């Protein structure tokens, strides 16, 4: 009897919360295929009565959507690969060797995680202006490349690799870079996957830096491109909705495939280590 009550209670919560979580997404999908007159119509319905591709046509007219989609893909891919590779190099340096200043340097790695990013905004902006980096992708790729958290995460996993493996390779005459490539990288794969997923997601969704550094429509990444549609969210909702829908497809696909494993692991790894 008590079991049945508990079961009903748990299921009721699951149902209500699922409803609250997915409804906004469903409404985004539905509204993308509605004219604004229908979006404003009452009573609300999710399924469009007269489905239309009008919003998508206007969207492609207003902003170079696919161009921005490719920009986002390029930036996210470049940021992800460079970040994972370089963070792994640094993590290996800390995990493999004893050297002067190691403790202090590692403390600095951790400290970079804790520095409030707000203090960097203004001076970095002026610095990148002087580098002539405005309207280029460098500010989106280089500053976040050696992420303190990424180094920390990969470092923790590399510490778990038996030292004998490194030494065997060393006796066989392998260079340190080769040891990194054939021993450390394969054995730290789980950590690298987490970093890959987190950095890709972060970069794909990043809004602040691209807003600051990109101003040419043809150069914008998707979040900023979509934000330029905001000017008329008061007038029209259908068009930004259509853009929002198309832009969230890749990341939701990623979540539903590899996501559960690496997103969830990445998040919990961060929490437990923090």
């Amino acid at each position, binding site marked *: 009897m008590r079991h049945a009550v508990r079961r009903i209670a748990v299921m009721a919560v699951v149902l209500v919360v699922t409803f609250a979580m997915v409804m*906004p997404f469903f409404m985004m999908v539905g509204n993308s295929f509605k004219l604004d007159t229908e979006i404003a119509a009452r009573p609300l319905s999710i399924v469009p009565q007269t489905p239309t591709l009008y919003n998508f046509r206007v969207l492609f007219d207003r902003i170079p959507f696919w161009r921005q989609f490719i920009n986002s893909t390029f930036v996210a891919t470049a940021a992800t690969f460079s970040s994972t590779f370089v963070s792994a190099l640094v993590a290996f340096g800390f995990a493999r060797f004893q050297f002067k200043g190691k403790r202090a340097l590692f403390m600095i790695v951790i400290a970079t995680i804790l520095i409030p990013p707000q203090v*960097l905004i203004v001076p970095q902006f002026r610095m990148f202006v002087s580098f002539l980096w405005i309207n280029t992708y460098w500010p989106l790729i280089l500053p976040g490349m050696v992420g303190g958290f990424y180094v920390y995460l990969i470092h923790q996993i590399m510490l778990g690799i038996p030292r004998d493996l490194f030494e065997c390779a060393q006796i066989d005459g392998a260079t340190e870079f080769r040891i990194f490539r054939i021993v450390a990288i394969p054995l730290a794969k789980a950590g690298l996957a987490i970093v890959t997923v987190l950095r890709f997601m972060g970069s794909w969704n990043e*809004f*602040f830096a691209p807003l600051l550094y990109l101003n040419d429509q043809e150069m914008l990444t998707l979040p900023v491109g979509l934000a330029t549609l905001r000017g008329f969210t008061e007038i029209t909702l259908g068009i930004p909705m259509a853009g929002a829908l198309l832009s969230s497809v890749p990341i939701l696909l990623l*979540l539903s495939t590899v996501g559960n494993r690496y997103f969830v692991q990445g*998040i919990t790894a961060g929490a437990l280590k923090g």
Partner: protein
Amino acid sequence: MRRTSRHLAPYLFISPFVLSFLVFYVYPIISGIELSLTDQLGFGESNFVGAANYLRVLTDSRFWKSISNVALLFFFGSLASIVTLAIAMAHVINAPEIGRLRRPFTTILFAPNVTSVIVIGIIFSFLLKTDGGAINEFLGLFGIEPVQWLRDPRWAIPSLIILVVWRYLGVNTLYVLAGLQAIPTSLYEAADIEGARGFQKFFRITLPLLGPIMEFIIFQAAIGTFAVFGEPFVLVGGAGTQNSMLFPTFYLYDTSINRMRFGYAAAMAFVLATIILVITIIQRRLFRSSEE
């Protein structure tokens, strides 16, 4: 030859970090301090003004309005709503009764967290619309008059609370779950033998042992609330009616990038960083003392 390369190897591996640290952290912070002591406007000449910018920040009512918005969103959104709901959701996910729905339910809870803030902003500008918005329509079913979520300054923070609860409930539930897994089951077995009730186990074992993860959650929430930017940017274009949605990062952005008052903005950033630092220290103290 071989020996020297072995000796150099560690430094070669960590050199990208050292380089990145010097270029993207050390130099900006030093030049930021320098900048904050000048009246730098745009990219031309500037004069040394000492601590004048800092003193102006301390009496800048818009700045303090943005801090009080952070405080409201943090206490009512993060602490009162998200943390309690996340603890509840973690228990639901851990309940044996959920059965095969566990994984899909976890993924659904987590989905908003991988969605960009702009997409979320666009969705919520529909949900929070005064006329015909989904939330007002839903409240209308219970005879509640339409609320001017985004226009009425009194409803600005509640609007953001709804948004952040939806966005961050999932990820915080995962944090709590991670914390729950770290609690040894033997403690609960011992409590069962002693005949402890469910709520006794919750308050005597679960809650105290979630301490470290709570510290992490609250730290993340505080940092995240100070960094709020995209939500008000999409929903109301930045500051909202009577600065009701003004957040420090937007104020900083507006002062520097839009108005080019770089000297003043640099000083504001350091005041902000000091506030964040003080909060972090207080929070550490609180958690450390409660653990003893």
